[in-house]
């Protein structure tokens, strides 16, 4: 059975002069889904969003909203709500006038305008600031008014371009929760752009990671975290990101590591799996910082490294280890505080080791 998706991108390509902002992006987003576009700045996430809204015209590819090809449809006919990074609230209008602005475009009656504005203002808890102008509102209120203006027309698609980036850190989490809550209440298909992986992990049904204009992986937060498609995703998601060590399989159950020739004993099961891929050298082993254990004594399933810096964060410690020029980060319980200069044995959780191809950077195991 084919379920019609709300938004469908087919081989979307957008160039700015010689630079390619979005390259062959294909994606389907289902009705009611909360999708986050995640990636470093300049990765094409905002451009993709603007293409969906019709604020940019892609050179190639097709965009469907609710089954309809919208490539040639101007923004005003696409039925999208857009929240801009800097809100773009009109300074010469009060919050009420800002929120009712799209309704006035659709020639609503005065009474129904008031009803709709009050409804959305109640949802976002901004009824008491409706008579103020944007210059008198706090960052959080500006944010809410911008959301209200985009939501008031009940758009098919709700697009948010880094809506929290201008807020102070203390409001950010609160606003994040509010956006998620609003989404749950109205159930609009939402695309949310951010460069903050924590934010993405916290609110997304599905994360679309992008880099250099290409979609790297589009899956649930858990899958992205535990099964990153490639080294970029593995490193970008998680704080600190994944540790990488060059490696090659040697013999039955030994890995030669790119750490001054150190070796690591691995499960036969893993060795067998690597063997079955047909590629045994030129690999990269990836382990998340929390999947590394520290041992004071020699351990055959580990390898020795020197403690460089210990960062005590409260609930956990980040231990920076060194071997030659290579460093690793390990996340430990707060009571583990090795001295710097000490040698410790790093024992990876065998089940959580990921193997990448060094050339293509793609996960092979």
């Amino acid at each position, binding site marked *: 059975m084919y379920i019609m998706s709300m938004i469908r991108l087919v081989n979307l390509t957008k160039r700015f002069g010689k630079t390619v902002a979005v390259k062959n992006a294909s994606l389907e987003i289902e009705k009611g889904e909360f999708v986050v576009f995640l990636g470093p700045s300049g990765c094409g996430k905002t451009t993709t969003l603007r293409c969906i809204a019709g604020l940019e015209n892609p050179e190639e590819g097709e965009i469907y909203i609710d089954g309809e090809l919208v490539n040639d449809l101007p923004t005003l006919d696409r039925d999208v709500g*857009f929240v801009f990074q800097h809100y773009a609230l*009109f300074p010469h209008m009060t919050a009420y006038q800002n929120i009712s*602005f799209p309704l006035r475009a659709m020639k609503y009656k005065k009474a129904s305008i008031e009803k709709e504005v009050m409804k959305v203002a109640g949802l976002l808890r901004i009824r008491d600031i409706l008579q103020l102008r944007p*210059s008198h509102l706090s960052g959080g209120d500006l944010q809410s008014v911008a959301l209200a203006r985009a939501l008031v027309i009940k758009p098919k698609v709700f697009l948010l371009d880094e809506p929290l980036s201008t807020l102070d850190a203390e409001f950010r989490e609160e606003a994040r929760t509010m956006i998620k809550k609003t989404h749950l209440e109205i159930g609009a298909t939402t695309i949310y752009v951010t460069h903050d992986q924590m934010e993405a992990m916290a609110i997304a049904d599905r994360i679309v990671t992008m880099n250099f204009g290409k979609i790297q992986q589009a899956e649930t937060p858990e899958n992205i975290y535990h099964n990153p498609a490639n080294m970029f995703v593995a490193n970008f998601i998680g704080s600190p990101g994944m540790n990488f060590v060059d490696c090659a399989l040697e013999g039955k159950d030994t890995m030669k590591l790119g750490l001054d020739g150190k070796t690591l004993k691995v499960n036969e099961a893993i060795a067998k799996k690597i063997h079955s891929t047909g590629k045994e050298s030129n690999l990269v082993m990836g382990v998340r910082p929390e999947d590394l254990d520290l041992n004071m004594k020699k351990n055959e399933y580990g390898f020795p490294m020197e403690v460089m810096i210990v960062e005590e964060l409260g609930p956990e410690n980040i231990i920076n280890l060194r071997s030659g020029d290579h460093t690793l980060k390990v996340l430990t319980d707060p009571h583990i505080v090795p001295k710097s200069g000490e040698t410790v044995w790093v024992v990876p959780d065998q089940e959580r080791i990921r193997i990448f191809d060094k050339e293509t950077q793609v996960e092979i195991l």
Partner: protein
Amino acid sequence: MKLDQAIRRKRKKGLKIAGQIVIFVVIAIVFAAYIFPIFWMGVTSLKTKVQIFDTKPTIFFKPTLKNYRIFIGTEESGEVGAGRAGAATSFIAAMGRSILITVTVTILSLLLGTMAAYILSRYKMVAKDDLMFVILSTRMLPPIVVLVPISLLFTNIGLKDTFIGFLLLYTMFNMAFSVWIMKSFFDDVPFSFEEAAMCDGYTRLRALIKVVLPMVKPGLAATSIFCGIMVWNEFLFAIVIGTRKWVFMPPTIFTMSYGTEGIIWGVLASSSLIYIVPVVVFVYLVRKNLLRGITFGVIRG
């Protein structure tokens, strides 16, 4: 120690008051320098010819409205040679013509300038900077240089002494100014405001009218003041091109207050004073819109 601080604080306060007095005095002097000529014009306009030429200027005198009666045309100045032969020399009519040309030219230059500036600010086009320079270059030579050629041209194509001729001429003078000012104001309005309006269901044109124009109101106000005053004050082309029918206020004041016996100071004063009034009223009405403040602090970056 405490006493020391108290003294210092007192001294500081004293300095502050002294500073304010100095500022006040300076402002008073500057203000007087501007206001005195107008005050003197007012006094002069209420005097008779004899009183004006009195070697000891009198402060207290019996005011006469004769000069104002001459302005509205109920009385003749009686001076030989005042007024231009064959020209329409009524003050009231000249005032009407001046108001008409000023209002139409201001509206037209604002309209055209705003449209051109919006396009130049928002759209990509070839050689945009060169185009802006060409527009600016129309203001680079003093108008008097082109006075004779334009006068001849207007005579040849039948625009001399016509309303359309003046409309074209003055609008052309103002275009460079209004395009440049309005473009700088449009450049300051981030494009995301229009994008937001388009997402809200507005067309480009309606977004311009509903969102962008209210935000460049200070620019519209400033441009209309400068364009208006330029037309209102224009004398050179007005006296050369507007010979009989389309005689505006500046040439009328000039010809009506020069007789064979010299300058008729009373008429000059009364007509000049009345001539100032519309400008003062207009600037007073649009002064609030000159404030730029409301667009600040909303969009950053």
